[in-house]
């Protein structure tokens, strides 16, 4: 498509994500205890000290006990990969790994992650940017359309393989039933997992998690 009237891009570009995140003061910054009462305190700043490792990075946070892990990841740590679909544990879009096990981060109190290791979709590619085999397989098999459920699908799929539940199509379908895709990319998702499973197992060995 030709858009002759489109102006040349200004630098720096303000994309939607940057804009959204800039409205959450302190995004991406670990909070010290003294910042909790400040007027520009980030969302979910509270009184409960919580030490959590996220994608290998240690964070010392002061949290409201009512905050979900999903909200803290997205709004306080700037990790917007995990999505808020239903916020009631029904859709799987918020799936992350907590100490190696897949969980619904929307139904996990963030304070319960104290002393735990969290892995999100932002933490699975290699340091040089090479995609995780499961991510690459989703790309190769068109295992998405709008992409909204994809971070949760990929995190659930990696866990599915590590749990040993990717040994047949029927098992994969059953094991992935907690992740809904409104676009209906299920056939591609199934193919992606089927192909990535042996690659992952060769790399990690069985029952890695």
């Amino acid at each position, binding site marked *: 498509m030709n858009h002759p009237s489109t102006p040349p891009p200004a630098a720096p570009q303000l994309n939607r994500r940057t804009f959204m995140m800039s409205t959450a003061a302190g995004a991406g910054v670990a909070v010290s205890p003294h910042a909790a009462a400040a007027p520009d305190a980030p969302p979910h700043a509270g009184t409960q000290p919580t030490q959590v490792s996220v994608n290998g990075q240690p964070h010392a946070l002061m949290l409201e006990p009512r905050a979900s892990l999903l909200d803290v990841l997205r709004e306080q740590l700037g990790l917007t990969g995990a999505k808020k679909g239903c916020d*009631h544990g029904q859709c799987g879009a918020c799936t992350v790994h907590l100490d190696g096990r897949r969980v619904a981060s929307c139904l996990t*109190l963030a304070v319960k992650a104290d002393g735990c290791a969290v892995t999100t979709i932002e933490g699975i590619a290699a340091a040089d940017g090479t995609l995780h085999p499961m991510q690459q397989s989703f790309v190769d098999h068109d295992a998405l359309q709008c992409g909204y459920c994809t971070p949760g699908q990929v995190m659930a799929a990696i866990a599915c393989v590590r749990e040993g539940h990717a040994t047949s199509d029927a098992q994969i379908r059953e094991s992935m039933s*907690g992740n809904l895709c409104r676009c209906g990319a299920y056939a591609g998702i199934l193919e992606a997992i089927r192909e990535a499973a042996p690659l992952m197992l060769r790399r990690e060995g069985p029952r890695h998690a």
Partner: protein
Amino acid sequence: MRDLAYLRPRSTGEAVQLFARQPIGARYFAGGTTLFDLMKLGVEAPATVIDVTRIEGLANIDASERGELRIGALAAMSEVAEHAVVLREFPALSESLWQAASQQLRNMATVGGNLLQRTRCAYFRGSPEFACNKRQPGSGCAALGGQNRGHAVLGGSEACVAVYPGDMAVALTAFDAVVDTLSPRGERTVPVRELQRAPGATPHLETVLAADELIVRIRIPRGPVGRASTYHKVRDRESYAFALASAAVAVQLQGQRVADARIALGGVATRPWRATEAERSLRGLPLTRAAARRAAELAFTGAQPLEHNAFKVALGIETVTDALMLAKDRS
């Protein structure tokens, strides 16, 4: 959602003492898959949650005793589902867990918490404009004259027809499991079968446990009857849905005849529903499909269908019949 205080005891004794020191409105909190969900809906509003998940030693599955299997209350549903002894001796228990929720939720939810899962009745979970005697005692029951396709045909009252939604408790009811609890008044043991109350005129009182009473373990008698068992669950879709009708069934045959049979129903009743008359009807008989069907019909004696759920009686009878035949194939 209102803010709350958060406490994290390290022992069962400390948990119970902390609870006793709270003003009204404290709740024990484990996986959170029911409680946090209901807090977001405004159905639950605890002032304090006491996170029991860091208590040491409460997540063990102990098969060292010949007479019983002991499952710590904090064991995850996913761990119990794939435990070797559970798979071998109580396949219906493993299946009831595999067929519940999603793997994400099974990793989070504990077996102690799962026993206390609250109903999925949409009026209970809905906003205050809907009458619900369980959520707001005395307000009425919107389900009786409303959308009641998913509601109970057994055990309901004029105050409440909400279905008990869990699967595991149905299997545990068939196996005569008990729970051990701790409160400021000491320890006691409650059969799983008696844990949930019939709604009667007080559906807001769901279990026989006091608010400060903590489930610490589940104990299941070990014996031959569990091995030939199955959990058969019929849903609107094949995975990740609540039961329209389910049956936990176990049979023990001597020769061709039934020595012991267990039948418990889910998805159709206000509490995990043991069908003792149906069980008795099978004893001493060859387990034919006709005998199984007669037992299944007995299990639904006295069913009281509502406007939209009469299908559950026919579906439930088929479910129990099929489950008995599946269990027979395993004996």
